[in-house]
């Protein structure tokens, strides 16, 4: 049995934003419900009011606009998985969607909800970090775009105020010379929260050296993290097996692993190393392992 709460059913986005503002801070938006409903049941969240934003106009759709791919926050993981624009310009996110929970959950879980819930293990976060994504936070007084690096504050905590709603996510169109990949270690083959996840996107210059580099790790720190120092090591260099050996421990330096129900800190540290090494290896052979960002994988 769920605890009691006031349920508000707005028809439009301005109406939803007004309801959030009126009830702040004792309010939560509800979309797919794949996190919020179990959390309400478990008592993790006890909001007095819940605003249903599922189906509210302006939160759906995937489009290419002014050099960006823009996703409404209500886009589901199933939509991400089947969308041609994302396959072409955000293959690393599609790779993560493929191993996200299970098909029943993917039909409801939304990208905005996965980010807003701010689990350190959120599967959309490392791919969106390496795509250079930003999140749009809106109130009826206006909206702001926040870089995803600045969005997560702590476990289940973000810079999104209770009166703000995540309305969209966008990232710049990757270069045709960008390659990307995502890997996730799970305790079973599906319906499993990541022990560790890792994403990378590297844009090569005309000589084949790493020009633009982004590496991100999930489930190894209180928030999803960028491995900035490892990115610095790779920039300007040609990726080869020796460089992967050198950079992997540097990338793992971004992790601060803890013991939890899925893994000991020690195991997590060991497998982060393995996962990063394999992920970068994938990028050496983008036609077999990684995803060419400018082509369908």
């Amino acid at each position: 049995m769920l605890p009691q709460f006031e349920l508000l059913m707005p028809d439009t986005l301005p109406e939803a934003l007004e309801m959030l503002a009126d009830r702040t801070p004792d309010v939560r938006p509800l979309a797919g419900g794949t996190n919020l409903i179990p959390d309400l049941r478990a008592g993790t969240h006890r909001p007095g009011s819940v605003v249903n934003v599922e189906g509210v106009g302006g939160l759906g759709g995937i489009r290419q606009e002014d050099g960006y791919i823009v996703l409404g926050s209500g886009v589901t993981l199933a939509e991400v998985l089947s969308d041609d624009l994302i396959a072409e310009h955000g293959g690393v996110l599609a790779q993560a969607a493929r191993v996200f929970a299970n098909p029943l959950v993917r039909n409801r879980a939304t990208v905005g909800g996965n980010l807003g819930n701010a689990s350190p293990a959120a599967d959309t976060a490392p791919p969106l970090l390496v795509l250079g994504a930003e999140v749009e936070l809106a109130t009826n007084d206006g909206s702001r775009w926040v870089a995803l690096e600045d969005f997560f504050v702590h476990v289940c905590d973000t810079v999104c105020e209770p009166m703000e709603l995540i309305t969209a996510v966008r990232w710049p169109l990757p270069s045709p010379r960008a390659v990307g990949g995502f890997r996730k270690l799970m305790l079973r083959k599906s319906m499993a929260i990541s022990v560790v996840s890792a994403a990378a996107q590297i844009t090569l210059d005309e000589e084949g050296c790493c020009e633009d580099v982004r590496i991100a790790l999930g489930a190894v720190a209180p928030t999803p993290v960028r491995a900035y120092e490892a990115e610095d090591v790779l920039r300007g260099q040609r990726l080869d097996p020796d460089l992967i050996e050198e950079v992997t421990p540097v990338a793992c330096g971004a992790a601060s692993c803890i013991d939890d129900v899925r893994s000991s800190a020690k195991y997590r540290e060991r497998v982060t190393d393995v996962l990063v090494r394999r992920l970068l290896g994938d990028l050496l052979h983008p036609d077999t392992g990684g995803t060419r960002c400018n082509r369908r994988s």
Partner: protein
Amino acid sequence: MQQKVITLTINDCEHQAAVQSNTTLLQVLRRLGYTDVKSGCEKGDCGACAVLYNGEAMNSCLILAQQADGAEIVTNAGLGTLEDPHPLQEAFADTGAVQCGYCTPGMIISAKALLDRNPNPTEEEIREAIAGNLCRCTGYAQIVDAVQMASERMGE
């Protein structure tokens, strides 16, 4: 308590139900007599409560009843009857894919959603499609066989 009357079309039959803000779709379906929809984990892990919701397979425990106002729902019982079973239901019986039976309605719903968009799935595609449905009896082998058998029979 905030009560609201919602309309649901379930297995082609229109229903109206008074529901609270914290009533889930799973609860209202069972209250209306659709007890083929099973209550398992109630947090989206087991798939026992899966239904076709506007054509897509979803966990009814994760949907608030008021969110579902106006929705079209198909449960396992809506796919066939004892006299005229759906090929999936027949194949589940023929292959022995049912032991305790608790996961079966959800399994058949996920399998139906798969065959609707992919009439000739590979074994891997079948396993992926039922990844959200836990079975604790059969070890999945007969379930995969059943979906394959249904796919073949439906293609004939």
